[in-house]
């Protein structure tokens, strides 16, 4: 199968992430670290690296975007509506301690610390394409584990048909929530078979490092065949439900953003043609692929649906 074509070497092995950053920022960090010897309390939280990570056969072999692109061009309205706001405001988001409530149609509901959530799962590197509904795309080396493995641990009941997710709601840490640009907290959802699909990932890292706040630290969803807004960030609640859960962008503009949000070049958004996209770092646009190029793996999930209606 074409998707079983891993890159020979993981990007985290080729180049340390620091080199991907611009020199000024790197030097700034070095200076800050030097200054920190005099003022230990000023020591910035050093990015923590995960150990050696196994390579996922589900990774694309396409070259990933730079660490700088991925961490400075973000849609995370909780940290500001400009693309560069999230990186600027991310320091406000405190990710330790962090806990996640699992409830609804599960045998083992409860509130768990992030450590408890992660403990039994082996992390791996997954390089995925990400396609935004705004018609730009990136390739991102995530660190994470399949959502399905987590859901199984909590033993869904037979009534569980959907999985609903909620982002942290705290205007102190997420200043964008002080204005009602969207209805807070941000919520998203998947159908059970989508949630259990091996491509659906819970990410905790990027380029072998702990996920930065602007990318949805400490725990975010990644659904590579759907538009980016579906991949909810900074998750504090996972609920298994019988009914289709509300989703934030669908609530804001139902004719523009559907529940499914599958990448589909044949169904235009009123503001952006979805036929083509700009891969950040490239000059010319490229054709958008159905399901963002993951059709072979996921198209059968929707074989009985009219995707112009269930967009």
């Amino acid at each position, binding site marked *: 199968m074409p998707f079983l074509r891993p890159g020979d070497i993981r990007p985290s092995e080729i180049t340390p992430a620091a080199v991907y950053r611009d020199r000024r920022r790197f030097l700034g960090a070095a200076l800050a670290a030097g200054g920190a010897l005099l003022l230990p309390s000023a020591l910035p939280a050093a990015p923590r690296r995960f150990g050696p990570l196994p390579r996922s056969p589900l990774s694309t072999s396409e070259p990933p975007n730079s660490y700088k692109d991925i961490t*400075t061009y973000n849609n995370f309205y909780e940290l500001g*509506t400009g*693309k560069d706001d999230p990186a600027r405001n991310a320091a406000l988001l405190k990710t330790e301690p962090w806990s996640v409530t699992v409830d609804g149609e599960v045998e083992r509901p409860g509130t768990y610390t992030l450590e408890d959530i992660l403990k039994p799962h082996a992390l791996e590197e997954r390089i995925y394409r990400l396609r935004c509904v705004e018609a730009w795309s990136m390739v991102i080396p995530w660190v994470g584990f399949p959502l399905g493995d987590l859901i199984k641990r909590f033993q869904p009941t037979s009534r569980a048909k959907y999985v609903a997710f909620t982002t942290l709601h705290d205007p102190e840490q997420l200043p964008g929530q002080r204005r009602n640009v969207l209805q807070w907290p941000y919520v998203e959802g998947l159908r059970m078979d989508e949630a259990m699909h091996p491509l659906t990932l819970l990410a905790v890292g990027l380029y072998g490092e702990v996920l930065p706040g602007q990318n949805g630290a400490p725990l975010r969803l990644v659904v590579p065949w759907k538009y980016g807004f579906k991949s909810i960030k900074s998750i504090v609640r996972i609920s298994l439900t019988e009914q289709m859960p509300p989703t934030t962008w669908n609530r804001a503009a139902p004719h523009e953003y559907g529940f499914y949000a599958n990448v589909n070049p044949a169904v235009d958004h009123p*503001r952006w043609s979805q036929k083509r996209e700009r891969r*950040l770092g490239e000059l*010319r646009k490229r054709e958008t692929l159905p399901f963002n190029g993951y059709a072979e793996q996921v198209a059968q999930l929707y074989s009985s649906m009219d995707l112009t209606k269930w967009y």
Partner: protein
Amino acid sequence: MVLSERWLKRVVFLLCLTPLAWLLALALRGELGANPIETIIRYFGDWALRLLLLTLAATPLRLLSGWSWPVRLRRLLGLFTFFYAMLHLLAYAVLDQFFDWAAIWEDIVERPFITTGMLAWLLLLALALTSNQASQRRLGRNWKRLHRLIYPAAILAAVHFALMVKADLREPLIYGAILTLLLGLRLIRRTRVYKTLENR
């Protein structure tokens, strides 16, 4: 006026070029962000709209202050509005769409924010082409009527911006409020109080 009109125009001319110079400086320093094409398009659009509002501010400023120099800068400001609108359109057609006429036409027909933007640009084009004195002479009284198209152009431009925004309408609302104020001042100009101001 301390500055002679000629020097005033030279200074304003250079001021109007500084946004372009600033963008070039950012580009040379590699500081256009992860999506430079989007940055460039937005930047030119922002400045076209700002200069359009400045152009529209000339008449109310004269009426409120009694100064005549704002009105003598009006054509210069209007032409720079078109200059940035042209760069905005070129950045879209060349950098973003790379002369893909089919895609551009589809955008114009199917996406209201592009439709309004194109209409605004067409109106500004008509005004720029007839901005010279020969056209003024040739068109006579119709010249003034034609150049009232600046009002629908400004409204279309403001709507174009508002339609582009996904959820956070703060910025387009600020521009919209300024435009409403500038057009509103013209409407109340007909009232007696305003006539008195005008005739003093």
